[in-house]
């Protein structure tokens, strides 16, 4: 058995934050690259607000492309940052399709309600710091980077 080959098992799809001294890291974990990107996007929203306060009332579609998975993940997060900033919206549900370095994403969310969502901070942009898109030993996809707030 190839020791470097990923083991196949049940992957716990999830998002999490990790510490960076001045800013914050976002990480998505999923059974597929797409799921990891979707979870990473939820982690991005969670930097700003409690995702559970949001409702998927309307749909925004984005697309982006990049020469590798890592640059694509940063582009994906930056596409969401742009839609949040220009539409004054927050998103809670994401659907990603990736084909040959081109990503098409559906963002479901709603207009910001300051009193309800109490947005903690804007995200200025996703960075290349701690940037990784990789498959773990247990077969899970991980997509992560630090975002500037």
């Amino acid at each position, binding site marked *: 058995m190839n020791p470097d080959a990923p083991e196949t098992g049940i992957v716990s799809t999830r998002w999490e934050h990790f510490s960076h001294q*001045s800013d914050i890291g976002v990480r998505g974990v999923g059974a597929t690259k797409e799921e990891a990107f979707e979870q990473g996007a939820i982690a991005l929203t969670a930097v700003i607000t409690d995702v559970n306060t949001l409702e998927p009332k309307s749909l925004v579609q984005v697309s982006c492309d990049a020469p590798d998975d890592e*640059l694509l993940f940063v582009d994906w997060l930056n596409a969401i940052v742009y839609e949040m900033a220009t539409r004054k919206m927050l998103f809670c549900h994401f659907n990603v399709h990736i084909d040959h370095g081109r990503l098409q994403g559906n963002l479901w969310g709603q207009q910001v309600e300051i009193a309800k969502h109490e947005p903690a901070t804007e995200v200025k*942009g996703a960075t290349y710091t701690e*940037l990784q898109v990789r498959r773990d030993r247990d077969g899970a996809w991980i997509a992560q980077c630090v975002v500037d707030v």
Partner: protein
Amino acid sequence: MDLNKLVQESDAQWRIDPFGKMRVPAIIYGTSDLMRDMDDKVYQQITNVATLPGIEKAAYAMPDAHWGYGFPIGGVAAFDPQHGGVVSAGGVGFDISCGVRTLTTGLTADDIQPVAKELAETLFRTVPAGLGSRGHIHLNHAEMDAMLIGGALWAVERGYGTRQDLERTEEFGSMKGAKPVAVSDRAKNRQQDEMGTLGSGNHYLEVQRVTEIYNGSIAAAFGIQTNDVVLSIHCGSRGLGHQIGTEFLKKMILSPESQHIELPDRELACAPIESLIGEIYLGAMRAGINCALANRQIITHLARQAFAEVLPKAELRLLYDVSHNTCKVEEHRVNGGGMKRLFVHRKGATRAFGPGHPDLPSAFQLTGQPVLIGGTMGTASYILSGTSESEARSFSSSCHGAGRQMSRHQAKKQWHGRAVVDQLRRQGILVLSPSMRGVAEEAPAAYKDVCVVVDAAHRAGLSCKVAKLEPMVCVKG
């Protein structure tokens, strides 16, 4: 940080001799205590900066340095275009020309106390703050481009402030060489509703009391004395700057002109100054600087309106406006030779020109420029002045703030925003913010002790302490 890896040059100056691919040494300023607490990532990042082509003399880290993106925050580096020097989008940062301006008010703390709550609420109502807030000014394409060329001058010409304000702003309010055509439509779209908004995170508007004077003659020249009240504004180029930073980080990674530059880490993405991508970035970045200057000018106008409503006798005069995320062309003397034209990156570092510098207005020719250092909502801020020595020490640069010591992640777990606000109220500080979670993440204890950082900058000769300010009212984004 392991101090054994550095050579101590004085009580607040440390050197890392070149190793590996470093072209120049790295110098970190800080007392032993600050240095011990400094993140190892600062060591790694500042030595990485020292490998970049065309870097002159040394890569510097200020006493408030912490882990950034490519460059450490608190990093200073100057590049010579004649020797293949580079410009780096990460070396400027996402929030292009983020900075601080401080205004004197002609009021004392006794004038504020009876109306502090009303003043706080009026400022909070007048100056849009926080995510989701919208500015009152919406620019069409032509006006957007005019703003990106004119900066604070554009704002003053439209009635947001006075000509005297421009004299008291770096670049006299208008950064030359801005190219609106280099700024994408997406960046301009992102700015549509954001003119005159404070933003969020560590951005604020604060009414502060002068509690201590360290240098009487310079303080007098700056027009401040103990118990005076000043207003400080900390914010940057808003969505436009963020989008420029985002786009050019990627462009610099992918640009063929950047491909031959060997990088220890791709987050250091940069381009030769004398390349098409370098030139386009500089045009866009300078437009971003003007956006920040215009933004702080409009906020100044709004703050004046708020003061006039509550305290009609207030007279808000701009002391100075400094930017701490920039790349600027400056003349510096390198290693005892003649003057060289260099592209000086300051990422979370304040320009600190000393007395007699030709780029300073006449008011600061004898004193050096005011160096404005923001604290947190519960701790002091400082006014320092530029020194002659800082030219040789750090290309005339100083620290920019306290610098975080705890991540937002940890801070959010440790504190509740409401409890922080209540605690500060008991200390006599009124904090207004649309987000209690935002307040928790910005809790004063999440930052390093700004007093220690400022003392280190003073001891290292980067700038000279003039006055200490303590918050009375804080509007947080």
